[in-house]
């Protein structure tokens, strides 16, 4: 009964949507990269950098949306580094990605110390607040969950539709999908495989950084060193879970977030008295792995994922 109470409470679903928001942005970013054939393992570091850049920009006096823009630009800059190494140079995408995560994380902490040398606890900013959407927010259960969130959460949902539209309805999206499947087909049309792939990695990395900035600008109001805490790696799994499709990836992100919100609440029930809390912390990950196994069996991996394109090679 306690389980059912949790599942039927609006606050539970509101929390799930909130937890899902950064994942949605970053998963979209990773999805764009992988659809173009580039695995971006820099995601974890880019999210850390985005969280910091957005927050420090607002702390320095920019408006909140200015902070989002700074985060996006920071992600694009890091994405540019990734794309130069992985696309024209064709280096191992695993090595480039992990290296970028280490670089971006370390650079963030370094910058933090340079900018705020003497502080013991990070300063707070005025974060995004919830905006209630008239009428819609009055729908029982769904209303408070979906239509009483911060503007950045609404933006996450809108971006899913935008990315899906671009991927499936525009020549640009078609080229991105083709370049991850058979770059030779794109080159034969006189289009630049290198340009399209680099562009996808750069834009995708921008999305990842915005996902990171959600943590400092919307979920919390400050920056902590370990606040991204593996969310980037979850997003890589969510892309697989979503079979490289934006809509399915959105569902995956909400599902994972729901598991997470559920376990927090479960800890406070009578079950929580018997089990160590770490068991609850494991839950979303275990359930995600199971869901991943079930969902990804028939998923189609972009055929040219992680295959560098060398013009003229037999």
């Amino acid at each position, binding site marked *: 009964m306690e389980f059912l109470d949790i599942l039927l409470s609006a606050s539970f679903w509101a929390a799930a949507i909130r937890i899902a928001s950064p994942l949605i942005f970053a998963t979209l970013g990773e999805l764009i990269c992988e659809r173009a054939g580039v695995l971006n393992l820099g995601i974890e570091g880019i999210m850390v950098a985005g969280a910091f850049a957005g927050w420090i920009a607002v702390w320095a006096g920019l408006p909140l949306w200015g902070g989002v823009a700074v985060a996006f630009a920071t992600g694009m800059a890091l994405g540019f580094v990734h794309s130069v190494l992985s696309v024209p140079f064709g280096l191992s995408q695993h090595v480039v990605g992990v290296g970028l995560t280490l670089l971006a994380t370390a650079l963030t902490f370094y910058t933090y110390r340079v900018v705020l040398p003497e502080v013991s606890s990070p300063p707070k900013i005025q974060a995004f607040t919830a905006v209630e959407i008239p009428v819609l927010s009055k729908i029982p259960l769904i209303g408070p969950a979906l239509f009483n969130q911060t503007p950045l959460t609404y933006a996450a949902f809108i971006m899913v539709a935008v990315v899906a539209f671009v991927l499936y309805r*525009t020549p640009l999206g078609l080229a991105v999908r*083709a370049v991850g499947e058979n770059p030779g087909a794109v080159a*034969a049309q006189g289009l630049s495989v290198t340009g399209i792939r680099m562009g996808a990695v750069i834009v995708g990395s921008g999305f990842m950084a915005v996902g990171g900035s959600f943590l400092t600008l919307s979920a919390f109001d400050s920056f902590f060193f370990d606040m991204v805490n593996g969310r980037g790696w979850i997003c890589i799994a969510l892309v697989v879970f979503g079979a490289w499709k934006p809509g399915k990836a959105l569902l995956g992100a909400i599902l994972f977030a729901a598991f997470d919100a559920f376990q927090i609440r479960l800890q406070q029930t009578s079950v929580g008295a018997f089990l160590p809390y770490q068991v609850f912390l494991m839950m979303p990950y275990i359930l995600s792995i199971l869901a991943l196994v079930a969902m990804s069996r028939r998923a189609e991996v972009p055929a040219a994922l992680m295959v560098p394109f060398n013009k003229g090679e037999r």
Partner: protein
Amino acid sequence: MEGAGPAQPVLRLTDITKHFGPVVANDGVSFDLHRGEVIALLGENGAGKTTLMNILFGQYTADAGYVELFGERLPPGRPRAALDAGVGMVHQHFTLAGNLTVWENIVLGVDGLTAPSLRPAKAKARIRDLSERFHLKVDPEVRVGSLTVGERQRVEILKALYRDAKILILDEPTAVLTPQETDALFATLRQAVAQGLSVVFISHKLHEVLAIASRVVVLRHGRLVAERETKGATREELAALMVGAEVTAPSFEPTVPGPVLLSLKNVTTTGEGRATGLRDVSLDLRAGQITGLAGVSGNGQGALSDLIAGLDSPASGEMWLAGALPRHWSPRTAIAEGIARIPEDRHHTGTIADFNLVENAVLETYRTTYSTGGWMNWTDARRFAGDLIDKYDVRCPSRNIRIRLLSGGNMQKLILGRVLEGEPRIILANQPVRGLDIGAVNYVHGQLAEARARGAAVLLISEDLDEIQRLSDVIHVISEGRLSPAFARGTMKPEELGAWMAGHGFKETTHAA
């Protein structure tokens, strides 16, 4: 351009010359293509056909000479220039993305990258209209990954037509097609030519060239050596022009076959995940005899060659090797028993693309002949590779280059050398000449003839009935995993074999498996 007379060529190459370092790939090549004409571009591997096409499509810049399309000079080195001017190319290796639908593949790149929408309804209507006009039946909504090879080629042609191509260039278009699909392709091309298109047809298959082209242009060592009407030309003449000497196909005089070296008795296999396994197959391979296996691919050829190569074991029935039942059947025992294979796919199962020629030459013998006590004996391996390269005429800049840089013919020669140097008792030749030019084909066939004369048993698997009939002492037809009786050389007409290939003539065996 309206003022251009009917005699004005749609495509004119003038004095195209291209060097790669010291190698001359094209040397002063000039020819014209007129409206509504099919010309064939003939030449052996390395004769410069591909380089010429790459110059036309701006991938390379010519050292000298120029290309004119519809009377206007093409700016060199601009990949889109030829496309935009109305030249469509159907590559030998298709340039399609499998996870996209047919129409998505076709419209890819047409509107540039900045258009706000793909306008699918309009695109699909146009594709349906084109496929009707040119008899290219294909559903625009289907994903390309689920199409057959023949259908994919239709998509490639549609792609060119969708871009209003006035000139179609087809690179080895029939290499992957069945005879029926080839006929359909030719019907389409005739349709296209009748509607004013011009076609450049690149091929090695001389009977096809004679069937479809009105004129041939022959390249040899980068130079244009002949240009003539096909009317009145014979295959032998064209072959001689291409190779630069009289070509004599190796002859296969009847011989007296020796003892049975390998014998299958009522063998059934599960097919190991392949669609078709073997069903109650009995087969004898005799010394000094070539046994031909005809059939449309995918009817159990793979299962049979896997079985003989040691990759699979009979689920029921027996396999006898030289009168004994082998124990523990694996690829390694098969090699030890003197079974050598020329694999169906030289790129994937025949060689390791990023290994060099030396490493590839000893792939099957490195454990036994070219190592002692766990150490490779590279000196001997290098000498062996060098011998193969000399003896089998493998043309390569060095034995230390990665094998992926060789042409198909040269790669096949290395594999052939590797196989034959072990003096195998049984040779499993699966599509040994697919995609090779006439010189290489005759070379491979000649080597198989020599192996036969030496007393080897050869199993020749091929989809080319012509090849099967010319080489084989006995012919079996395989269809849905069942094997026809043995037909002696010269006893069957192609149509009769074709009927067996289609599955007629087999008695449905009813006994329980």
